[in-house]
């Protein structure tokens, strides 16, 4: 049965972004509705032409950087959006603080979403936070 999965990405580390992207891509590909909310230190990595260098938390982050066969998290989020219609929603407050608009972000992201809207959409669904 299809369900609605809500993912909140707030941490700017490789492990957290990778795990969130794995959940998003697999759930979206399986037919679940997926909404990912990006805020805090997770959001800047989705600004166009931003660095691929993401801080690691520990051993797994290092391992993932060494292994060429690990699909990059950005590619997985893109898969989630293209193959499974996942919504990748930037936090409107974070955009305000960064003083950037939606156009400055990767094209898969949008529209800017506030907490009230996200919480109301998430009501009754599953929510994972990274």
């Amino acid at each position, binding site marked *: 049965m299809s369900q609605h999965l809500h993912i909140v990405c707030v941490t700017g580390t490789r492990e957290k972004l990778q795990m969130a992207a794995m959940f998003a891509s697999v759930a979206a590909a399986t037919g679940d509705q997926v909404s990912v909310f990006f805020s805090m230190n997770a959001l800047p990595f989705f600004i166009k032409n931003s660095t691929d260098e993401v801080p690691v938390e520990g051993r797994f982050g290092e391992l993932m950087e060494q292994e060429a066969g690990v*699909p990059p998290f950005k590619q997985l989020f893109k898969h989630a959006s293209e193959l499974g219609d996942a919504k990748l929603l930037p936090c409107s407050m974070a955009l305000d603080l960064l003083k950037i608009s939606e156009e400055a972000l990767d094209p898969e992201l949008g529209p800017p979403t506030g907490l009230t809207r996200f919480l109301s959409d998430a009501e009754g669904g599953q929510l994972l936070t990274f």
Partner: protein
Amino acid sequence: MSESKTIDARDTFCPGPLMELITYMKQANVGDTLELLSTDNGTASDVPEWIKKVGHEMVSSEKVGEVWHLTVRKSK
């Protein structure tokens, strides 16, 4: 006429092989057969799970040496 295609996803990690399969599955026609090659053990259990949930047909699954050969047919 149905076609067969082999997708080489060896040396990529979860969920890379599954995503490769899904990408090709979207492009395939109903009745086409896809064979996924993967060295990722998790993929061998993830692919049948996905096939079951989405409603395609798992044709065969076998490990030859270090490589999983997962054959699926697009059913809808």
